[in-house]
């Protein structure tokens, strides 16, 4: 075999791995980069090696390059190609034969696949790389002509046949295909992979505050009929930020009810890293900080969590604590610019764009957060920060989603005075029509809010259809109504919730 053939195969492998990482699974690189932070400090090496294994710092070192997806894909691909080259060399140095059949390509293909998951550290390729490097080094030192059978083979070797010049790369392609089929396909082509990708990319957009993109993704998800609390939560956030919370929340079945608006605290590490978004936007920084801290306890000191810790502590007036986390961020390779920006914020004592609704609120008398219902929190925020539009909308929406007519009407009177809000969003009008049935026509009419004839007509049509019981066939407009939500979805929400409560208590 011509020596240059392995370089041709190596280049093919590099291209294949790079395409896989960069085009098929960029979200995995992003996810891993966001969950492992490499720091340039001896303490970091010592602690991480002790707590997570001696190879963890090395893995985090490689993962950090995924900050730039193309660079990350290239570095990982290079690592795998080096594994291939070393194996080629080891086979030759120990046996005297070239790996003409390119069986060694199967190893990097397997290692490539082992990284295509968010459920485990991307440790396998690093571990294999280190071991293979050690074997290769030993083979280089003690192998080759020092081994009698290799020397005999090398001395009697005939000139390579020409046919291998094209056959060997062809076999490499075959091995690559076989490896793909055996190891990779399941991880990049299955529905779980697609769902993971959608969720990770949606969260990426949430972090970047690209709300139109978040809405597009979450709408597409909801349209498939899949239930997912995280996507539902992101959709509500995106709807608020794009001004469509009351008009479009019920466009898809709200099977999580009020929990679409937030995560009730359940001590779940996986939820912990997402729960803070809504509190951050509400300006309830103490609660956002708690979520992020819990996430940090669960996931370790990752770059996004350190960033939030710095921001929130600056907002809460705890500069020394903010500095502690900022120092960590400053030890990273790629977050220097962000750290510099945050250092400036620390000096100024505020973070641009971060609202702190509790500023100046006395801790006396003590008030405790309601960690399982966002309604109480938004109500308190509005007491301290009456201009907080998000708290206003989330409070009313939370009352509507739990079907608490009395509380919803009280919220309307208090926060949506009729003088300024005579015409309410469609969803609220629908709720008022419904509440007329329980609270009385006069009681609702006397509030002074306008209910459009169109809503009245649709309600009549809905009631006619609803009267058919099991034979009712609701059209899309009726399915998006508040009436449909209360009568057909909310009972299921409550049932699911009771079941989950019972499960968690047991």
């Amino acid at each position, binding site marked *: 075999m011509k020596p240059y053939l392995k370089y041709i195969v190596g280049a093919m492998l590099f291209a294949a791995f790079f395409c896989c990482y960069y085009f098929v699974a960029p979200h995995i690189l992003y996810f891993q980069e966001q969950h492992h932070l490499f720091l340039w400090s001896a*303490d970091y090496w010592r602690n991480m090696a002790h707590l997570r294994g001696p190879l963890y710092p090395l893995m985090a070192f490689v993962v950090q390059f995924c900050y730039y997806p193309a660079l990350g894909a290239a570095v990982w691909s290079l690592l795998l190609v080096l594994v291939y080259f070393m194996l080629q060399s080891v086979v030759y140095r120990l046996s005297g034969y070239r790996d003409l059949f390119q069986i060694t390509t199967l190893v990097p293909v397997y290692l490539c696949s082992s990284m295509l998951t968010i459920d485990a550290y991307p440790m396998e390729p690093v571990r294999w790389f280190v071991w293979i490097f050690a074997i290769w080094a030993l083979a280089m030192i003690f192998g080759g002509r020092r081994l009698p059978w290799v020397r005999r083979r090398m001395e009697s070797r005939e000139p390579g046949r020409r046919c291998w010049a094209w056959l060997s790369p062809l076999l490499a392609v075959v091995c690559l295909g076989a490896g793909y089929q055996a190891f990779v396909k399941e991880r990049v082509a299955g529905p779980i992979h697609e769902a993971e990708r959608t969720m990770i990319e949606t969260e990426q957009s949430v972090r970047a505050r690209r709300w139109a993109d978040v809405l597009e993704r979450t709408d597409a998800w909801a349209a498939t009929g899949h239930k997912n609390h995280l996507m539902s939560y992101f959709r509500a956030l995106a709807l608020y930020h794009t001004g469509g919370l009351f008009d479009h929340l019920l466009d898809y079945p709200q099977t999580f009810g009020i929990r679409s608006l937030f995560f009730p605290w359940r001590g779940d*590490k996986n939820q912990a890293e997402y729960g803070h978004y809504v509190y951050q936007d509400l300006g*309830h920084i103490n609660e956002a900080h708690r979520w992020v801290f819990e996430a940090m*306890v669960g996931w370790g*000191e990752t770059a996004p969590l350190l960033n939030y810790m710095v921001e929130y502590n600056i907002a809460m007036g705890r500069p020394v*604590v903010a500095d502690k986390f900022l120092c960590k961020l400053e030890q990273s390779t790629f977050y220097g610019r962000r750290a510099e920006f945050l250092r400036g914020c620390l000096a100024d004592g505020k973070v641009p764009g971060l609202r702190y609704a509790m500023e100046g*609120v006395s801790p006396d008398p*003590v008030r405790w957060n309601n960690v399982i219902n966002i309604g109480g929190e938004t109500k308190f925020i509005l007491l301290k920060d009456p201009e907080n539009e998000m708290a206003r909308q989330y409070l009313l929406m939370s009352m509507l989603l739990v079907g608490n007519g009395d509380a919803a009407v009280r919220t309307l009177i208090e926060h949506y005075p009729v003088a300024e809000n005579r015409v309410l969003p469609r969803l609220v009008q629908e709720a008022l029509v419904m509440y007329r049935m329980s609270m009385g026509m006069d009681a609702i009419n006397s509030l002074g809010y306008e209910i459009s004839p169109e809503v009245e007509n649709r309600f009549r049509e809905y009631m006619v259809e609803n009267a058919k019981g099991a034979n009712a066939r609701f059209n899309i407009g009726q399915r998006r109504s508040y009436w449909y939500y209360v009568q057909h979805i909310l009972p299921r929400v409550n049932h699911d919730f009771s079941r989950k409560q019972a499960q968690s208590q047991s």
Partner: protein
Amino acid sequence: MNKFFSYIVAILAAVAAAACGPKSVSPDVMSPEAPAMNPDYAGVTFPPNIAAPSFNIEPDFAAAEFQTEVGRCGQTPEIIVRSSEPAVELPLKKWRGLLGRSVGDSIYFRITVRDAGSGKWIGAPDVVCPVSEHEIDGYLVYRQLYPGYELWSEMGIYQRSLENYDVTPILENKDLNNQCINCHNFSANDPSRGMMAHVRGPQGGTLVSKEGRVEKISSRMEGLDHGATYPSWSRDGRYIAFSANNVIQVFHTAGTKPIEVVDMGADLIVYDTETHKAYTDATISGQHHLETFPHWTPDGSRIYFCRAAGMTDTTRFDTVRYDLYRVDFDRQTGRFFNLQPVYEASADSMSVSFPRVSPDGRWLMFTRSRYGNFSIWHPEAQLCLLDLRDGTIREMDEVNSDNIESYHSWSSDGNWFVFSSKRLDGLTARPFIASFDSATGLAGRPFAMPQESAGFYRLQTKTYNIPELTVAPVTNQDALFDGVVGQPAKSVMLIRNH
């Protein structure tokens, strides 16, 4: 050849010069005050066997170079560190030698800083630190974890040699499927006499290690509503007093206090490590009161503890205040009698936690905060001292700061104590050590446990929980591990006296 030798001589001379260290510079001008040290070691009393402190020099002007000289008072400096960096990390061997020669005397830190603007060396008065005649117990055992709220991940109980910087793990939850480990305690500061810790999780239980033998008992005793929690082991090694707490966590909406941990129920029990029976009675358990944080007197005849009115549906968590109580224990019958209030803090709208009687039985140190008992999150929490002879109480101003002081424990001889304080950053608890004079009841200025790196406390994001001084290292780590994974928890018979 001659040239070759001259090179060799030059190199050897350079090496020798480097080995001799820098020569001290004399200040061009004097400043009236020494620049700040962070962590602050100014004026503290050092035990003669403590590791060298590392600190940063923080002058209030831009400095280009820093020089620190350390020596015995009245003598030339024995250690000189000069650098363009403000970090001062002293050589351990020289430091220990210096302390050894300065026992009962004082040492000084002479800090000279070169002003970046004028280029002049600015001197300052010496920072003088007494060196005690009393050695401190050689090890500090603590739990280290993130100062989180409800979740946990990496945590462990570690021991640190105070004479150098060696840290060794005793139990780490990475080896125990991430189960929670907490509330370690010792009998008379001696791990070989008795050590215990709780493990919470599928392999949960209370590890009781006595003279090297480890057994796991069930933390949840039959007939008791809650599991064993805060311990105190009698000095004779026979009894462990526990509070059995049912706690919940609540979170502050505003202000700098993030969390409150609240007892919904709490009772006391005493576990006999010889008979494997536990005792309680209506004096120290029941719904009417919350009883927690027990601590034995040195003779093992009396338990000091904290008591508050029991929770009702209308109790506001910020009105729960604990008083200091004591109860006598009859070692023959396992009965409790002579319940007495010692300090009714609630009358002053204050609350007591962590009562700790000194080894000579004369002093009782406790933490006082405005409400509740989880003082580690209360910025107003302060250490107080009760003279058990005359009942007088005072705040320990010489050790308190304007931030949190909380958990504390005495050394085996009572000449030192260690306590958790969040004074450095308000978030993470650090172990502070202070000398104590039992004759006067006065403590020395406290100092943060020395670390090898000057920036350690600034960068370390984990907290030191339950610092306990021990006279010797824990050596039966394997047995403790086997106790967790290899033993089922033995049930304990609870005898409820009436």
